[in-house]
């Protein structure tokens, strides 16, 4: 069946539940329904036939959980199951004009960062299903009942890269309009539209009544045909059985209403039977498909946060090593925590989107870009702008990015447009186009405009929507090219008027070489917003720039009633930690002892004006640490107080390190230590506490993270010439991984020392797995480091 043609011409009716029908025929709880494709094919064929008789256009194979993870507990392969399932469907459909959909449900394990399954592994799992589905001859791939947008992305890429079949995709929502993992409707639509599926929508979890508002929200913004497969109401458990209470006629009534509003693909999920489908078919019989009105949203997102560009939105510029020694050093040492602090600071200051640039000549930009994106996305939901000129970096970044990103940037050069635009299209990103080409930046507005026009034309030719093209009219330096500054503003106006696309602009270059740069920047920013700038790229920590933007939002009637503007003047910033009492002498020693992290920076800066960095370490920090440690060991303070003192020390060190790196002084590091939570384990709070304390004593910690396989630990240990390796495990089951790693480390015949720690370990157990040291707590880990590294 040509599903795409059928979808153009009319409504498509899918079948109802498989699981419900199987349970009615005696499936036990916990049994794998997919196995019945092989052990009881006649049951499956029977169910398909009932749905076909009821009038379904498309039947869904009994392969919801036919992935290698769920099938691993059975004696059948993914290929076996899918082949049999498709055969059963074909048998039922024989001689009839009925399409067959390959059903793909969630893997069942959660992906990073929530769980442990990597994007690449998820992709491979789905790929196996897709390849067999194509081989067995299905007509359409149905990815359904998804709750994690990242998993959806892996599945859609697997489907599109390994088949030419239509791909339909539905996710499952709760009544609050979020999936279990927090994904909202707008983000789902943005991402699926971008990835180029053929239809999108919702299924399962709720009945038609509860889904109704969500369906209309989708119709309002979706360019693609919308698919709906509700449950037969909300499940309730009666006498130990799950039951649903929407009757076939009610179900049909809702479905018919959805069709009137523009839903193109209808069917049922849990609790629906052939009776529901039969009623549905009757209710929409011979109905012409209705058109639906939708708006073209311009915006970017992560699963839980959508940034719609309907006014000025701020792109934070600080994740960028250009001209920042400390940042460069952090990237070279893969000190991702440093980068993360830049991200957090900008979002706290009001950035809507963050630019991510990790371009340094001597680093592996692909590796660092993907790492930074993953790490930022594991703790925050701010959308990102991937800033690189290298197509490989852009593609790797876009592939693992969770949501819809911006690519920064292309320009008017054909070579660049042709290499980058297809990537932007494939991953459904937005793109920034710079108004320059091989001849450089044109002097006049009209010349820059004509480059913009070319970029927009080419992007549209590549299938990128107009609302996803952002033009950067380029800021020039007033001190050097004074008369061209105005040309930038004129270009913005032209682009807005004639091309109807969004504009983006890095602002602060304009003031380079002039005194009171802030004044120039602000004046220019206000003028650019007046000319039509949507997305200023700025340092959001600069309060004056933020004020200008807040004021503009009022003047442009975006901040209705000036609510946000007024709120920004209310002093409602509550400090997380209120100092007990202001430390009188602002003495760093006391500040550390009292654990007042917020005051450590200022006190250190002050001290640095009088003393050498090393003097501060020896005269203030080390004695304070020793005292705190002693108080902890004697039971005067408990763990949170110890850690707070340790963090106070680290804030002070951040200032000292900045000074040292600015003066290109020798490192104060006492040696490198690797820390990792072993494969299979993701408990890492204990390991992170050890890290904080080790850093206090100036050990340079290479934190590999959690769930780390032995190969990576060995590779990093060899590469970085590390002597001490700390391993953490919290479960009896993962101590085995620890033992394997220790064995492999010893096999290298290098002089590695291994310390282990974690709730399930003790001295005896540590000896048994041949660890050199057992660290009972974080303080103990420091003592061990002193023995090994001095």
């Amino acid at each position, binding site marked *: 069946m040509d599903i795409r043609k059928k979808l153009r011409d009319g409504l498509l009716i899918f079948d109802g539940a498989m699981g419900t029908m199987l349970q009615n025929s005696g499936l036990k709880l916990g049994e794998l329904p997919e196995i019945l494709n092989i052990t009881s094919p006649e049951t499956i064929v029977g169910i398909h036939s009932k749905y076909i008789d009821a009038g379904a256009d498309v039947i869904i194979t009994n392969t919801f959980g036919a992935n290698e993870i769920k099938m691993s507990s059975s004696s059948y392969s993914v290929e076996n199951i899918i082949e049999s399932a498709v055969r059963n469907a074909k048998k039922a459909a024989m001689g009839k004009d009925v399409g067959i959909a390959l059903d793909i449900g*969630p893997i069942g394990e959660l992906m990073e960062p929530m769980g442990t399954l990597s994007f690449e592994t998820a992709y491979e799992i789905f790929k196996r299903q897709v390849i067999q589905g194509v081989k067995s001859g299905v007509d359409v791939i149905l990815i359904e009942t998804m709750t994690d947008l990242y998993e959806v992305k892996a599945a859609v890429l697997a489907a599109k890269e390994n088949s030419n079949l239509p791909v339909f995709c539905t996710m499952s929502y709760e009544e609050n309009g979020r999936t279990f993992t927090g994904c909202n409707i707008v983000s789902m639509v943005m991402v699926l539209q971008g990835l180029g599926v053929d239809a999108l929508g919702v299924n399962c979890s709720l009945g038609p009544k509860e889904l109704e508002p969500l369906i209309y929200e989708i119709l309002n913004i979706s360019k693609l045909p919308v698919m709906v497969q509700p449950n037969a109401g909300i499940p309730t458990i009666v006498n130990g059985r799950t039951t649903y209470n929407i009757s076939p006629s009610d179900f049909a009534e809702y479905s018919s209403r959805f069709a009137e509003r523009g839903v193109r693909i209808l069917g049922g999920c849990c609790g629906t039977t052939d009776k529901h489908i039969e009623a549905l078919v009757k209710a929409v019989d011979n109905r012409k498909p209705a058109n639906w009105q939708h708006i073209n949203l311009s915006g970017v997102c992560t699963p839980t946060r959508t940034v719609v560009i309907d006014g000025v939105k701020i792109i934070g510029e600080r994740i960028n090593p250009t001209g920042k020694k400390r940042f460069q050093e952090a990237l070279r040492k893969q000190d991702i925590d440093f980068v993360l602090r830049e991200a957090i600071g900008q979002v706290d200051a009001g950035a809507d989107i963050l630019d991510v640039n990790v371009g340094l000549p001597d680093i592996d930009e692909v590796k660092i870009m993907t790492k930074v994106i993953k790490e930022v996305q594991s703790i925050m939901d701010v959308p990102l702008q991937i800033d690189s000129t290298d197509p490989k970096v852009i593609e790797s970044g876009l592939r693992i990015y969770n949501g819809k990103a911006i690519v920064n940037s292309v320009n008017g050069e054909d070579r660049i447009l042709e290499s980058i635009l297809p990537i932007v299209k494939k991953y459904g990103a937005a793109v920034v186009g710079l108004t320059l080409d091989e001849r450089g930046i044109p002097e006049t507005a009209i010349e820059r405009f004509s480059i913009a026009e070319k970029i927009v034309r080419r992007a549209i030719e590549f299938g990128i929507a107009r609302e996803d093209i952002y033009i950067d009219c380029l800021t020039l330096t007033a001190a050097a090219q004074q008369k061209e500054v105005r040309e930038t503003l004129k270009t913005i106006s032209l682009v807005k008027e004639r091309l109807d696309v969004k504009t983006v602009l890095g602002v602060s270059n304009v003031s380079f070489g002039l005194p009171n740069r802030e004044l120039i920047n602000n004046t220019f920013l206000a003028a650019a917003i007046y000319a039509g700038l949507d997305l200023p790229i700025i340092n959001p920590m600069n309060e004056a720039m933020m004020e200008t933007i807040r004021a503009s939002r009022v003047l442009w009637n975006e901040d209705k009633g000036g609510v946000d503007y007024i709120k920004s003047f209310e002093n409602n910033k509550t400090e997380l930690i209120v*100092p007990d009492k202001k430390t009188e002498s602002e003495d760093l020693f006391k500040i550390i002892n009292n654990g007042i992290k917020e005051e450590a920076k200022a006190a250190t800066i002050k001290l640095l004006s009088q003393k050498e960095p090393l003097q501060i370490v020896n005269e203030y920090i080390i004695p304070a640490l020793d005292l705190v440690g002693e108080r902890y060991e004697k*039971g005067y303070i408990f763990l949170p107080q110890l850690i707070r003192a340790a963090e106070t020390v680290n804030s002070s060190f951040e200032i000292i390190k900045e000074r040292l790196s600015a003066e290109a002084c020798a490192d104060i590091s006492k040696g490198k230590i690797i820390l990792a939570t072993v494969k299979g384990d993701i408990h*890492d*709070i204990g390991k992170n506490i050890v890290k904080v304390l080790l850093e206090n004593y100036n050990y340079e910690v290479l934190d590999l993270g959690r769930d780390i396989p032995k190969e990576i630990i060995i590779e990093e240990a060899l590469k970085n010439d590390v002597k001490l390796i700390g391993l953490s495990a919290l*479960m009896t089951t993962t101590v085995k991984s620890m033992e394997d790693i220790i064995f492999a480390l010893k096999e290298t015949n290098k002089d590695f020392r291994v310390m282990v720690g974690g709730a399930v370990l*003790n001295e005896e157990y540590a000896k048994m797995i041949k660890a050199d040291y057992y660290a009972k707590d974080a303080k103990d880990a420091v003592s061990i480091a002193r023995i090994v590294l001095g």
Partner: protein
Amino acid sequence: MDKNQYIKTEVLRYLGYKNQDIDDNTHSLIDGSIEEIKDLSEERYTYRFFDILDTAENVQLKDSNLKLPGHDIAKHLEKSNKCVLLAVSLGHRVDTRIRYYEKTSMTKALIMDACATAAIEDACDRICKKIENELVEGNDILTSRFSPGYGDLPLEIQKDFLTTLDAKKSIGLSASASSILIPRKSVTAIVGIVKKDEQIEKRSCESCSKYLDCSYRKGGLSCGH
């Protein structure tokens, strides 16, 4: 003791508190974190009653494929002929926020983690109370909760346990390849139903998976479970 005070006592216990002086900062951090966890929690649960078929060897449940191997669960259920399988989760937002604080303040992360642990235990207590109130036989009560990984009941049954409750679909709870529950602040447990007058055996330290390492036991105390 009022509810908040009880939770705070629990939080302090998880943080290894043994009567040290607590400064005002730490107090306010803990109080704030208890509230923050309340706001972040998206408590969801599912449970189902099962008839117990056989407690001689492996515990088997009627109409289910789930096997509960080991002596300890058999002992736990020896006086029950019905039990409840329960799964409770606080949701992903708690996990994400704790990960966030691990980058900004380990002190806060540590305290939040303890507060979340206290919150999930509290949720389990409340839900068990509710289930108990719903028991048809007024004379029936619930035993304590017994989770995969306790005693000799293998942690590896976690996935089958979740499949039996269809927990991924109904409350978004799943397990990693190494059987760690995700979202992290979640509990699965088997609870027996017994007659009120039956003696309920208190779970002993010896059957606990943390037996060797427990700092409370080493100090001659009990964790209270």
